[in-house]
């Protein structure tokens, strides 16, 4: 039974195997060569640091701050991205007027603005939320525009054959048709928003996982830094899975595809 299942899905066995071999090699290398823990801690040290940090609630308090910053930034990015993308895709004049600015802003590395935002908005949550929103905004915007512009001609012909108004065509065809693209954009945006929040915390903050990384860095607590990185990875995966679950529910008729990065 097990043998047949493994034969059909060899990767089901290989994925954990790669993990075990990797961790064991790491652990062995660190112990055999006696590598200093301020250069590379052993996996067992990282696990201990993670356990201690989680049980003392220290990590969770910081993680909570980062999650709030990322989610609020994501929400702002999602709403403005969908609204502005819709206006750009639907109205030629808006497109012609705003598109040069959009392209200019997009080519700018948003992260470079972070220090300025910290100066303006301070060390609290708001500067991180704005940075997260700024970073997460473009994947949403680009995917909304592309999604609204890729309606196949037969569907538009169908609506025209009923003399549908522009609003009816948008509501019944163009918008639902764009939803797979919108969700592809939102999926990227939610991961980007965590990135934005962390960068904001690096630049200037009192709390958050990014701040915690800096604290550990100063203290040369490398095992602690690895533990926070693991926590960040878990956070990213969790947010991505939540987005996918929402996506499967809302756009039940389509499979996730058409990802356009930014």
């Amino acid at each position: 039974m097990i043998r047949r299942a493994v034969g059909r899905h060899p990767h089901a066995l290989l994925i954990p195997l790669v993990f075990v071999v990797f961790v064991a090699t790491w652990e062995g290398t660190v112990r055999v060569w006696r590598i200093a823990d301020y250069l590379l801690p052993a996996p067992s040290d990282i696990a201990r640091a993670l356990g201690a940090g989680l049980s003392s609630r220290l990590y969770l308090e910081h993680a909570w701050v980062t999650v709030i910053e990322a989610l609020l930034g994501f929400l702002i990015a999602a709403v403005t991205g969908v609204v502005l993308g819709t206006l750009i895709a639907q109205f030629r004049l808006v497109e012609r007027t705003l598109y040069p600015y959009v392209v200019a802003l997009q080519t700018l590395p948003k992260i470079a603005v972070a220090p300025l935002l910290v100066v303006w908005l301070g060390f609290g949550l708001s500067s991180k939320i704005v940075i997260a929103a700024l970073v997460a905004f473009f994947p949403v915007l680009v995917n909304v525009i592309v999604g609204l512009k890729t309606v196949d001609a037969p569907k538009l012909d169908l609506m025209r054959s009923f003399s549908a108004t522009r609003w009816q065509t948008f509501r019944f065809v163009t918008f639902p048709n764009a939803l797979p693209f919108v969700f592809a954009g939102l999926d990227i945006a939610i991961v980007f928003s965590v990135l934005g929040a962390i960068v904001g915390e690096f630049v200037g903050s009192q709390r958050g996982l990014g701040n915690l990384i800096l604290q550990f860095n100063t203290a040369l607590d490398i095992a602690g830094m690895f533990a926070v990185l693991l926590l960040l990875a878990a956070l990213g995966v969790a947010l991505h899975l939540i987005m996918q679950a929402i996506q499967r529910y809302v756009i039940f008729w389509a499979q996730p595809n058409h990802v356009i990065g930014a």
Partner: protein
Amino acid sequence: MSDRVITSGREGLRDASIPQAPSPPLISAAALNQTYVSQDRSVVAALADISLDIAPGEFVTIVGPSGCGKTTLLRIMAGLLRPTSGTLRLLGRPVTGPSRNVGVVFQDPVLLPWRTVLDNVMLPVQVLRLDRRSYHSRALDLLGLVGLAGFESKYPHELSGGMRQRVSLARALVHDPALLLMDEPFGALDAMTREAMNLELQRIWQESGKTVAFITHSIAEAVFLGDRVVVMSPRPGRVADVVTVSLGRPRDLDLMASDVFGVYARKIRQRLGPRGLLE
């Protein structure tokens, strides 16, 4: 099938042996021309001097090789495309755009994947702002008529190709148009399904009393379904001939193997050109 589906007071069942009363044509095309400018800026004629009258209740098939402008002609009749010159009248009035007296079945079913079968059929009712409640039962009747009773709450991806095209047919009929335009609707189906759909379409047409213009590149389909077959020649599309098919109704599939059927098919093939031009 339910009487509610039969509409507009026109006759339902008919018999080809009874000559139709001389009535004004439902749709009338006079000297239609369609040209367009190609990429190398030369002017290309797609349709040349098309004149065609279709009587109320008539089933006209339009057959021609690929690229003869059949679809262009249908788009003009649907009001989706303005002819370069010529006039088109529907129920006596000049056609200036899409009309609610027309229902279109496209080559592909063009269903909205996020809507159930019933909601897809109800789409024209919503867009045309008709009374949803009264058309709801009509939509259900039509789904029964096309053989999809019980599939109302399925989604398009749960249906076969033939079933999707049936939904598309029900949708084209739901707002009770006088004219049904069909653009090679069964071209993507396998031969068996296609023959079954032809039989179904004949029955639906007889029960609903609609006027049908049906585009195809299959000579057999054109003869089987049509009261008259309009034969088109390619580039630019012209009416090469109009063949009246005097075969009784309802026609069954055995008819396709008969000698009379073969005579019609041969005649049309000859009109299409020296080598019959179809694939």
